């Protein structure tokens, strides 16, 4: 696949989600209680849908966001371990996005001061896909991505 186009798509898709999410007022500072679940953000179904909401500039790719204990290949898509650590100063939140899932957004974590911007959890993946770690820090957005392959099981699944 064309690498440039791929990179552009990656950045764009993560970015559109940011605008959508930000527009919905979800990643607002101090929203640590998170009592309300943001339906709009979790309802983004496809690349097209998110692309429609495009505007502004994409989040900056950052080497300060790393995946740890996250395998390149998942033996089963139902449970894919994901670890994300951000060393971007003033990290406020970390979101996990899966490009090819029916809904792109898997989870978002608000990180209050005093909490290590590093966490691990497990997510479902319907198929091989890029996974994004989207970080909001000091009001700005940063992103890192990683492809995770999902394999078929034995004995016909």
């Amino acid at each position, binding site marked *: 696949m064309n690498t440039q186009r791929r990179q552009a798509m990656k950045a764009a898709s993560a970015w559109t989600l940011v605008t959508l999410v930000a527009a919905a007022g979800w990643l607002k500072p101090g929203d640590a209680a998170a009592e309300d679940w943001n339906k709009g953000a979790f309802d983004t179904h496809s690349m097209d849908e998110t692309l429609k909401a495009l505007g502004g500039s994409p989040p900056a790719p950052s080497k300060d966001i790393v995946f740890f204990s996250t395998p390149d290949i998942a033996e089963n898509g139902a449970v894919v371990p994901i670890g994300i650590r951000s060393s971007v100063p003033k990290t406020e939140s970390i979101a996990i996005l899966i490009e090819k899932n029916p809904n792109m957004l898997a989870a978002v974590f608000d990180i209050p001061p005093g909490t290590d911007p590093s966490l691990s959890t497990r997510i479902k993946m319907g198929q091989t896909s890029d996974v994004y770690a989207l970080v909001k820090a000091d009001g700005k957005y940063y992103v890192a991505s990683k492809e995770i392959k999902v394999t078929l099981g*034995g004995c016909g699944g």
Partner: protein
Amino acid sequence: MGMKVGARCIAGALMAIVAGGVMHGCASAPAEPDVTDRAAAMLKSSFKARGQATMDRLDQDETQRLCSEYAGRTLPASTAETIEKANLATIRYPADGKLVGDWKSGEKIAQSGQGFQYSDDPKKSAGANCYACHQLAPQELSYGTIGPSLYGFGKRRGFTDATRKYAWDKIYNAEAFAACSNMPRFGQHHILTEQQIRDVVALLVDPASPVNQ
């Protein structure tokens, strides 16, 4: 090539088991008809028919009986010959003589493990599940190693009538070539249809198949 190796290796490994058993003080004396018969009877009283998996599946044919009996021991050459001969005689060919179908359909059949389990829909056609045990198209990373790699099957053997016939025969009844092989007898047991066998043959022998790239 490697296809025969599988069965012989298994026989060797089974030998090792008996040795392991002795260490535990639990090896059964060789060939105990009493234990064999009681085990078979116990099996039959411990299962229940479910869906398409009926109780007659526990009834062994002569090949199954012999291969079970000699598991863990060297299969005598004469017994191996008997098994191979009897199975060779079961192989049938299409009336039109056409052995090679469409490799793209063959790839789908090779990927599918559905069929004949009580959990499967008997109305859907069965797969051959080749990738469970063999490497075929190199693009498929998720392949098993119970059988040898078949990548380059046609290319290595030559795109000849003999190769095509061997592929057909082996898929139809692997016991005809390697007594007590681990490979199911896809033709003899009607696991695959005639057309499906053609398609899997194509996956192996068609020069355009990814297996031969």
